[in-house]
């Protein structure tokens, strides 16, 4: 019991790293996902193919392998990144692929008439996207975006393998000292659960707010 409480401050600190990794990777993943989604629906077939290849590669390989490629593989071609940037890069690229798919679905679900109405006023494609199409996508994409974030939060545990002292790694370090794996891993699991559940409650509230003006 004492161990649980003693370990809490250290784990809390590590949890901050975990949430930080998740949030930064999410923001970057959103940006990557948006551009990849746009490439995916573009009229240029090379953009489309490139985007499809990216999504297929990322979704078809384990995140762990992607992390290894970034951290251990890239230095061979002269790109050496510290553990945390490596982790963020791998996580963002991974999340970006999944997010691009939900953005694409959301963009395609917006009625064709919306783009036409925008064009008929004289808007450019980027103007129509920014003002009319994307704001409507956010509502549709919110559930999957939220789920991606929660998945990402748990996936951050994988970057422990490249010595980032996030939640899981920090628990392992305590275990190496105290030899209490069951207790500590359960505690860590519980902390992940608290964050996941907390964020999914926030997600529910955001979705409710976003649904305000819709009556179908």
């Amino acid at each position: 019991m004492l161990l649980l409480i003693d370990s809490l401050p250290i784990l809390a600190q590590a949890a901050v790293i975990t949430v930080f990794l998740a949030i930064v990777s999410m923001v970057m993943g959103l940006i990557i996902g948006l551009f990849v989604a746009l490439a995916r629906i573009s009229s240029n077939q090379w953009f489309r193919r490139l985007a499809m290849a990216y999504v297929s590669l990322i979704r078809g390989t384990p995140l762990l392998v992607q992390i290894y490629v970034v951290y251990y593989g890239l230095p061979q071609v002269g790109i050496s990144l510290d553990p945390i940037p490596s982790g963020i890069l791998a996580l963002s690229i991974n999340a970006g692929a999944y997010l691009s798919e939900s953005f694409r679905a959301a963009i395609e679900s917006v009625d064709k008439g919306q783009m036409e109405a925008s064009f008929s006023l004289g808007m450019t494609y980027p103007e129509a996207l920014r003002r009319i199409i994307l704001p409507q996508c956010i509502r549709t994409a919110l559930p999957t975006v939220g789920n991606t974030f929660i998945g990402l939060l748990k996936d951050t545990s994988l970057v422990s393998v490249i010595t980032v002292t996030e939640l899981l790694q920090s628990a392992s370090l305590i275990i190496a000292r105290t030899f209490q794996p069951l207790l500590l891993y359960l505690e860590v699991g519980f902390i992940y659960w608290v964050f996941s559940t907390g964020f999914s409650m926030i997600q529910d509230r955001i979705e409710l707010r976003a649904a305000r003006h819709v009556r179908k």
Partner: protein
Amino acid sequence: MAIIEVSGIHKKFGNSEVLKDICLEVEESQVVVIMGPSGSGKSTLLRCMTFLEEPDAGVVRMDGLEVQAGSPDRYRHKLIRQLRQNTGFVFQHFNLFPHKTALENIMEGPLVVKKASEKEAKELAEELLRKVGLSDRASHYPALLSGGQQQRVAIARALAMQPKVMLYDEPTSALDPELVREVLQVMKALANEGMTMVVVTHEMAFAKEVADRVIFMDDGYVVEDGTAKEIFESPVEERTRKFLNAIAI
């Protein structure tokens, strides 16, 4: 000189030719009603006139601005956007922006395309809402408006760009019968102010009362073109007669 000059418009979808060498001239302040059976190419013609659909061949001249059918390039894109600014388009299904209020829908064009200030856009939008009789609905989202109200907002949204020409693609055919009148009234008032309009509609009464010309289209051709009286009372073509009999029922 005609404010709208459309000539030699061809459009194919796959193997079927939907528009076959359409020519059309409309004088300033004229109201032209286009009728014809479903699938005859009326919507496609209207859409080609603002390049929402790319014609395979032909020229569109709107208020002195000429755009040819052809491959897209930057300069041509810009011309097309300019042409669209001068040409209001009203859709059968309104296509209002659901995430914006009635007022914001109308402000959108001036704000984004004309880079008007928030204040200018708002004043203009309020004035246009008054014009279509919906001042009390300014802060309503489209989902809370009736079909007739939505279509009136859509007309106001098109007018906000201060177009020289208005195109309507079956503006009342998605409406419940009791809501048709309020939309037609707004359109009539606009016609009386001298707006040049091309209206695809099957509202005979509107055509008789408002249209300077009625055009009958069938199978991608302009079959007949005359005054409402001529077309309705003494159509020359058998196809026109058949169609008029069918919609009169």
